[in-house]
């Protein structure tokens, strides 16, 4: 009930704000890839708020491979019929901005003071050349470790592992009681997620050089070989042999039901656990994934909506209304409560309605900004161009699935693959 009240209140405010400016009927058609389940439910909320604020809402949801969404976007742009709003991320925002097709939201941003409230790390992403072209919906944290409390108790583990050495020691204890240590499902994005968490935890400078700047020497360096060694240890010993072809929810349930102790995964896991009837923060522990450098750390991922230039005044008006809705504290609250992430606005109070893990996430974000350890995620397409990211992910997932590939070979192959794209 409270959600409904907030929603209605927010909608009313927005409706008032736009009543004066709009002779045109604000319309939109948002292109995104959240076709089913809780993701689709979260987007439906956006549609409800947009409609309540007087807009005409339409959406085009394209499931499956992200390539399908991007193929659709490219086809629409080539056809001279760019969609008014598209869910796009990271460096892609800059790439599309460079084609000159994106709309400029500076006026609205100035009016609503976006620069002051949006997390600073997101600003260069949303304004690649100084103009606002995108609206961030949330901040996901990638470097989470989830743990089943009863398994830890049975194995005699009293707290979540702080360093990778702790993690390995804990895993030995878990194996000793006959359980799998780390739940996992092998797909390019999950393998890359785990691997980037390892690299980040071992050597944050290496992460920046290799995964943010795409430096070839860093990709080939001994530090990278060391990270692959840790990864090999985890794949061959701490995970079970059936990781390939497993569903996400099966992997999540392995940990939640107590067949495995840990799960390294981003905070959308909160939404999955809640939907399956578990209580993250109570029976499922959450904490920062291991780091060997003893500070708060945060690997950031953010979903955002990019706006493309339109001719029809209805759609231009709709873009303003949509961007304003997305950045409203009301939407940021409702959307992120459902999704497990935290608001992209730093001024939203998380003390009520948010999960304890989400509250930790916001605190760690602030601490990480203060400590200078905040990075954006490579695995979730927030750093390098898709072609480099693709080359990195191919190598990582090949390594995970090839027991005979040595860590040195993997580092070299990854460096070569990225270099070949230059």
């Amino acid at each position, binding site marked *: 009930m409270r959600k409904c009240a907030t929603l209605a209140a927010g909608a009313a405010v927005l409706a008032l704000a736009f009543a004066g400016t709009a002779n045109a009927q604000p319309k939109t058609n948002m292109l995104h890839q959240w076709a089913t389940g809780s993701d689709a439910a979260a987007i439906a909320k956006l549609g409800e708020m947009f409609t309540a604020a007087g807009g005409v809402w339409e959406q085009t949801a394209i499931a499956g491979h992200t*390539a399908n969404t991007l193929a659709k976007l490219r086809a629409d742009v080539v056809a001279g019929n760019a969609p008014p709003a598209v869910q796009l991320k990271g460096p892609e925002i800059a790439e599309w901005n460079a084609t000159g097709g994106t709309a400029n939201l500076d006026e609205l941003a100035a009016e609503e003071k976006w620069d002051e409230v949006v997390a600073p790390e997101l600003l260069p992403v949303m304004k690649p050349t100084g103009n606002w072209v995108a609206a961030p919906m949330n901040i996901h944290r990638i470097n989470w470790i989830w743990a089943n409390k009863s398994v830890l108790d049975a194995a005699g583990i009293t707290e979540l592992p702080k360093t990778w050495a702790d993690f390995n020691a804990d895993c030995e204890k878990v194996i000793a009681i006959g359980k799998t240590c780390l739940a996992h499902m092998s797909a390019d994005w999950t393998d890359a997620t785990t691997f980037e968490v390892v690299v980040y935890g071992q050597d944050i400078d290496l992460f920046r050089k290799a995964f943010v700047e795409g430096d070839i020497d860093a990709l080939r360096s001994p530090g990278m070989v060391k990270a692959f060694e840790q990864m090999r240890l985890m794949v061959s010993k701490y995970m079970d042999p059936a990781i390939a*072809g497993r569903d996400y929810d099966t992997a999540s349930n392995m940990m939640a039901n107590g067949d495995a102790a840990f799960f390294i995964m981003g905070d959308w896991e909160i939404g999955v656990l809640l939907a399956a009837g578990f209580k993250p923060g109570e029976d499922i522990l959450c904490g920062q994934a291991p780091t060997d450098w003893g500070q708060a750390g945060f690997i950031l991922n953010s979903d955002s909506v990019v706006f493309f230039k339109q001719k029809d005044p209805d759609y231009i008006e709709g873009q303003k209304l949509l961007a304003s809705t997305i950045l409203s504290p009301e939407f940021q609250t409702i959307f992120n409560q459902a999704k497990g992430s935290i608001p992209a606005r730093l001024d939203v109070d998380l003390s009520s309605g948010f999960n304890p893990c989400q509250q930790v996430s916001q605190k760690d974000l602030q601490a990480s900004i203060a400590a200078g350890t905040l990075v954006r995620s490579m695995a979730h397409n927030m750093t390098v161009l898709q072609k480099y990211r*693709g080359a990195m992910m191919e190598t990582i997932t090949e390594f995970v699935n090839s027991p005979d590939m040595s860590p040195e070979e993997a580092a070299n192959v990854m460096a070569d*693959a990225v270099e070949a794209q230059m």
Partner: protein
Amino acid sequence: MSETIPMAPPAPQRKGRLRDRAATWLPIAVLGPSLFATFVYVFVFTGWTLYISLSNSSLLPSYEFVGFEHYASLWENRRWNVAYTNLFIFSVLYVIGTMVVGLLLAILIDQRVRAESVWRTIYLYPLAVSFVVTGTVWSWLYSPTSGIEFLVRGLGFESFTFAWTTSRELALYAIVLTGVWQASGFAMALFLAGLRSVDQDLIKAAQIDGASMFRIYRRIMIPAIGPIFIAVLVVLLQFAIKTFDLAIALTGGGPGIATTFPAIYVYDLMFQRGQIAEGAAAAIMILLALAVVLVPYSLWRVWRRRFELQI
């Protein structure tokens, strides 16, 4: 099976030249729109792709010429080489598997079995089902946690493993097996019709000579349907070269990059990664592979027609 000889020019008519002219031009005019559309579809699209492969296109098509550099980087790419090798292995196994199963079923059905149309329908129905559906359902059956492995273990064979889609070495064969499942009914249908059209006198003569059934098939029936073999081969090969949806739905190209195919690679580069030029170069390589199949086939057809007309 043979082509008819083109008919003689229209017989002279009494009603005048206007009508004559109409008779010459009307067919061409009616054919025109289809010709134009197909010409654009086949040649303009291919030409455009060829040009894009030589340009510096990235996120969107661009027309600045840069030469063959994208072809060079394509062949340096590990995943492309995996994809091309996969295509080769897949095509060989898929075509042979489908033809062997199809021929076997055709010969068995040719034994005057009861309820023939029921059998035929059973073997043919997979052809009606989309690759998306086929891939989805078979991926359930291959899944070790819920499919065939789960079933057999439940029957008491605890050590039974059938986890093809999740094994790097075996995933490609899972795709082959599923491809054969889907296409062998098609091969069966064509082979069966071929067997039925073999000259009955030849067979009777052989029977009178006391030839065994095996011998009759091997020496008379199968050689007689040679042209059908070639046709089935060409159709299957072009299916194989275009393999896309099946692998996407069944394994998503994984585990790792083990079951990547050229068509998946093209799609990934052109649409996911914004490397349109290199994607176009890969597409041109697919067309070359198709040409390797089609050119000999066309030449063979031309040769056969000439040969038949002479005798």
